[in-house]
């Protein structure tokens, strides 16, 4: 990471900056909108870096500690860069009872990464999702927006090959 004199970690040269500024000006000074803003900001950058959190704190007039507290409380916010494809294995009860743990173990084995890690090539991040309400198709796995139901240990390789 480059160190620049201003200390913003290169954010001022990031091409996504105008998008960020647009969001921040819409919610300027609106403390109650913190979670909504963090959602939008994460969808721009993929995660919430320190610099981005600082900008949000400034614009919404919220202490940085509070922004950090909210970002770390909710599991959907990530403070680390994510892989291009986020694999979410649902470990809700219905999926668990139908073998989701085995599915998770198999993916760990095939990709060579542990839960919550990102693969070295930056392609996949492996996470556990909470129940997404597709219990009729248990066990369920998501890869970004795609949902796969009735996943079996044997079909995982085929699914991963698509990405």
């Amino acid at each position: 990471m480059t160190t620049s004199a201003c200390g913003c970690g290169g954010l001022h040269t990031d091409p996504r900056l105008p998008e960020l500024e647009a969001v921040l000006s819409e919610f300027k000074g609106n403390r109650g909108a913190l979670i909504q803003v963090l959602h939008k900001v994460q969808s721009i950058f993929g995660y919430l870096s320190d610099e981005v959190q600082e900008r949000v704190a400034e614009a919404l007039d919220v202490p940085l500690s509070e922004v950090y507290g909210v970002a770390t409380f909710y599991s959907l916010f990530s403070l680390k860069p994510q892989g291009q494809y986020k694999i979410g294995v649902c470990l809700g009860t219905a999926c668990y009872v139908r073998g989701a743990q085995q599915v998770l173990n198999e993916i760990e084995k095939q990709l060579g990464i542990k839960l919550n890690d990102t693969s070295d090539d930056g392609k996949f991040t492996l996470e556990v999702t909470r129940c997404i309400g597709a219990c009729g198709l248990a066990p369920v796995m998501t890869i970004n927006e795609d949902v796969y139901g009735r996943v079996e240990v044997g079909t995982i390789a085929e699914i991963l090959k698509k990405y």
Partner: protein
Amino acid sequence: MSVYRSHVLVCAGAGCVSSGCVLTENALVDEITTLGLDKEIKVIETGCIGTCDLGPVVLVYPDGVFYSKVAPEDAREIVREHLYKGRVVQRLLYKDPLSSQLVQTYGEMEFFNRQLRIALRNTGVINPEILEEYIARDGYEALARVLTEMSPQDVINAIKASGLRGRGGGGFSTGLKWQFTHDAPGAQKYVVCNADEGDPGAFMDRSILEGDPHSIIEAMAIAAYAVGAEQGYVYVRAEYPLAVRRLQQAIEQAKSYGFLGQGIFGSEFSFDLSIRVGAGAFVCGEETALLASIEGRRGEPKPRPPFPAVKGLWGMPTLINNVETYANICPIILHGAEWYSRIGTEKSKGTKVFAVAGNINNTGLVEVPMGVTLRQLVFGVCGGIPNGRTFKAAQTGGPSGGCLTEKHLDQSMDYDNLVALGSMMGSGGLIVMDDSTCMVDIARFFLDFTQDESCGKCTPCRIGTKRMLEILERITGGEGRDGDIEALERLARNIKQTSLCGLGQSAPNPVLSTLEHFRDEYQAHIRDKRCPAGVCQSLVSFRILADKCRGCGLCARVCPTAAISGKPRETYVIARNDCVKCGACMDKCPFGAVIRA
């Protein structure tokens, strides 16, 4: 207006979307157009029909023929054979898992004909994206009636008289809650809908929001009128993007039609509704944590009293109800409190939507009158246990609930009875488990969940659940000790009594419940270092049966750690210490001589 001779409904609930219903629907429409039938036959996309395991699902009316697992090519066949030539496609019909009979129509399927759909009245019937369809089924008539013929107190009296109780799990009298909010002083009041359905295994709120979003909008407007609020929020969990989208669309439609906004139906009542999306925290289903989240803060609960009805959002009186509770409001207004109170049991009025999942034949959503027995639900409506296995337990109330066993099969499913049996109704999630489930592992699973989701604010929950989880992990890891069960029970009592909110107070329930009904399983893990269900990896070992082994040596060749030894035509043996329990030998053996126990 064209009159169609047939309506073809395609379920576009979230489950079916994932099963490919869009391709199926496209194939239907395409084939219908190709055969020139598009002026006679209408294809309608509906919300969740309920049979999530059988998707994609196609229903042909007026016959009521129910087709399941319809792939795009099957869809074309249905058009050619059934819609064009009038011949029902037998091979796509539903087969009853217990009787093995083919069932032709929706009305003949036990899954449907035992249901009484009130909250789900429109889900699976209308296209949720077309407001006119909602209106055609008495949509917004309840709101019109309320605003023109009833006073706020009249509305509250009707809800009280109906006996409706909170469907999110608390089971508190809805009418009373509305009364408290109405009576509380405050410059501004709010109504909130709790759509943070976090219970793993529950998806009824999701289906209602995706399949019938206007029913919630209308009900919230009625509630706002009753309590004196002008602003409402629907808090939807982030894991439900389709629900957020459909609800947002419905709100915009309602606004453009004047069902939301200033001076609704020409009255002096104004109401505005917004959506707030969650960010992945189970605890935000707890009402005070939810309100904190709407305020942009960490979802940490507050002690109650004061209750949200008195001091909620930004310190103002706030009515907060669950999605399913709201879904019952309009029917009560339209058909009357007396009609509603005749359904269900004495203390649990109306119906309940159950989301049945797990080791069960017909997974999906069912709405039945309160008082139905567990047996009727599991074996009647949902077709029993698949793969020839036997019923072991049914978990109700999610991570806050307990399990019901074989001896409870004829018990009534209502609020108070379930609590008396050591469980609770919760949101209505019902996970069925067969004999291949380890109940100690299930207790560990639930506690792992609640421990992870604990907000951390109060010590008993933050630290207590961790200690309990550690004990359970030792037990399932083969290191259980004498005294562990007593320690679990002591911790459980403590945590239940001293936790700040419902999450901590109910986190120990699955442990207590499994201890009560499956104590012997715990003891097998601790004393005999054995997992009777064969689930806990550390307690499971692979053995070769002497009477089945032919000494072919295939197992030894696939073993990654060379743990198997033997001579040709003599029984092979697995060295326990070297075995990593990968199961490769069991998969390879052509004689079924390797078993896991």
